[in-house]
């Protein structure tokens, strides 16, 4: 057992956070507590955090009580969706959907019974992981979604999380279970309103049952000056298809840990991501696809555009276990640097233990093609517009992976607002 560390950055940090009032399984709460007592915030000496400094998060002194003043603007991506809005981790029923259709159970964790909450924590390890441990021990609230077997959900589900105020820390926890033969689409939107120096610590556990078809579109758009760490732990059962599109469009520091365990045969896994950075923003995408069963395929495409002195990290791991034969695993990371001081650290990793597989990985980093820019300018297009056209072209194929029109429209509107890019 690790020795309990003296007062360190982590203990000082969580000192200001209220313990969770959610009725998580006792064992889970204890493991989380122990993890928090025996670990500290990661330093850059830890491989997984080599390029991402969490000092500014550690330095946040959360207020004793979060003051959520007036009801925030809900940020609608799909007006037809079943919408659930949270502010600083707290559920806002007054601006959330009240009627839930047949075949699905959606409720905030604060309204779940112990049986439902017993599902929490099975996928997201707390040992040695301070962010998942903190998310349990100090959980504010989150959404519990259980889609019954054979349910084809027409409406999308939108989970909106808004941070507001100063120095607020939100520990936001979600659980999504897609039953056998079910089909659903979930939008996760992370926004901020007048927020400064806030920290969102999000953990989402997902299970896709046999033959389930689940798509998650995640948009990270918290203002500069705020921090975000997200962990997704996904478990796929056989014949299921899971797609997650991660669009990181704002925020001073965003770290995404996306871990997918493909545990059944004939699964399809799609991970797509876009990160567009300016000024001194930092985005770190760590992904793991673990092929534990044969006859599966995974497709990963992440693209980044970095301007000014922004920095990005891409670390994509694909594991193919010993008896996972006939796996097609493709991974690609492409980056465009728009300035001399932008930086990308890209590390694709393939660990293959089976011998009848088709796997590839690729990472490119470059600048915009000068010849192409000249050609566009020679037709009367300003250099600025030419660069915009080229960047839009660059991220075009990833945007093309977003099937949901509402999400795509919303994304286009952000790109217009934030980068002045027209599509």
């Amino acid at each position, binding site marked *: 057992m690790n020795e309990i560390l003296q007062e360190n950055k982590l203990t000082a940090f969580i000192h200001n956070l209220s313990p969770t009032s959610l009725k998580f399984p006792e064992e889970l709460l204890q493991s989380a507590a122990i993890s928090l007592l025996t670990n500290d915030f990661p330093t850059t000496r830890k491989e997984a955090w080599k390029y991402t400094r969490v000092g500014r998060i550690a330095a946040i002194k959360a207020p004793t009580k979060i003051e959520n003043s007036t009801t925030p603007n809900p940020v609608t991506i799909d007006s037809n969706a079943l919408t659930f809005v949270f502010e600083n981790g707290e559920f806002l029923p007054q601006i959330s959907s009240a009627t839930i259709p047949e075949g699905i159970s959606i409720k905030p964790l604060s309204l779940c019974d112990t049986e439902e909450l017993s599902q929490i924590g099975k996928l997201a390890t707390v040992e040695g992981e301070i962010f998942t441990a903190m998310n349990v021990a100090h959980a504010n609230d989150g959404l519990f979604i259980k889609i019954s077997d054979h349910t084809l959900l027409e409406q999308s589900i939108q989970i909106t999380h808004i941070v507001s105020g100063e120095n607020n820390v939100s520990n936001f926890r979600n659980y999504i279970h897609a039953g056998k033969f079910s089909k659903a689409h979930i939008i996760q939107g992370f926004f901020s309103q007048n927020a400064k120096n806030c920290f969102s610590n999000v953990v989402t556990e997902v299970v896709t049952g046999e033959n389930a078809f689940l798509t998650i579109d995640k948009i990270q758009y918290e203002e500069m000056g705020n921090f975000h760490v997200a962990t997704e732990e996904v478990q796929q059962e056989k014949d299921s298809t899971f797609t997650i599109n991660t669009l990181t469009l704002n925020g001073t520091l965003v770290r995404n840990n996306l871990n997918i365990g493909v545990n059944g045969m004939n699964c399809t896994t799609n991970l797509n991501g876009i990160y567009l950075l300016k000024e001194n923003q930092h985005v770190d995408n760590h992904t793991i696809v673990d092929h534990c069963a044969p006859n599966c395929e995974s497709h990963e495409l992440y693209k980044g555009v970095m301007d000014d002195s922004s920095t990005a990290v891409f670390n994509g791991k694909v594991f193919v276990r010993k008896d996972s034969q006939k796996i097609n695993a493709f991974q690609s990371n492409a980056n465009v640097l728009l300035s001399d001081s932008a930086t990308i650290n890209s590390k694709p990793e393939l660990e293959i233990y089976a011998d009848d597989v088709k796997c590839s990985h690729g990472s490119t980093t470059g600048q915009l093609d000068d*010849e192409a820019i000249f050609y566009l300018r*020679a*037709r*009367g*297009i300003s250099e600025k517009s030419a660069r915009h056209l*080229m960047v*839009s*072209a660059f991220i075009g194929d990833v945007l093309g992976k977003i099937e949901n029109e509402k999400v795509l429209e919303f994304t286009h509107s952000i790109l217009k607002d934030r980068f002045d890019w027209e599509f």
Partner: protein
Amino acid sequence: MIKITNLHASIDGKEILKGLNLEVKAGEVHAIMGPNGAGKSTLASVLAGREAYEVTEGSIEFDGKDLLELDTEDRAREGLFLAFQYPIEIPGVSNVNFLRTALNEIREYKGEEQISAKDFMAMVREKSALVELDAKLASRSVNEGFSGGEKKRNEIFQMAMLEPKLAILDETDSGLDIDALRIVAKGVNTLKSSENATIVITHYQRLLDYIVPDFVHVLYDGKIVKTGTKDLALELEERGYDWIKAEVEAK
């Protein structure tokens, strides 16, 4: 329309244009021929404003304005069009999107109204027919997957869309078979008017059977050393460039 006086231009410290003089008036077609390395492509690049080339001496007056003071995009907006020798592929940027952006930026520059989507598409249909370019190609990415002939026809299609005052065709005929050549020439001839002018840079006389020049100039060792009519082109075709070189050396 354009008056080039004593133009000297270098790249990487090497002087390519060594005092080039050329004057083209509205309504005229000028052909520029010359052996390889004479500076034909350099001239096209300098006119378009490629930053790799340094103009060390001389002036270029275009439609009453000092061309050398203008950025590449402003030169295009003032009505200068370069049909590239090697048109580049730009995957992901659609022909249509790119042209509409160009057209609207040119209009904005001139203080004119933006073109509506409907008018723009009508224009695309009309102009693409001019160079027998399938309208479907118009919605594809710029030059992506285009054959050599299609790329050159795409250049003329763009010229038709942008309606420039001065078109510089940089070896537009290189790599074209006779049919493609005819289509390109037909396009250029249809666009010719008494208000605009064309400079045809070419290595081969063949194109000039279709795009008939008013003047033919020989560019040799960075200067225009001889000017004649279209008969000069025929003479060059028969005799090559050696006699020109001899003439120049004799002087």
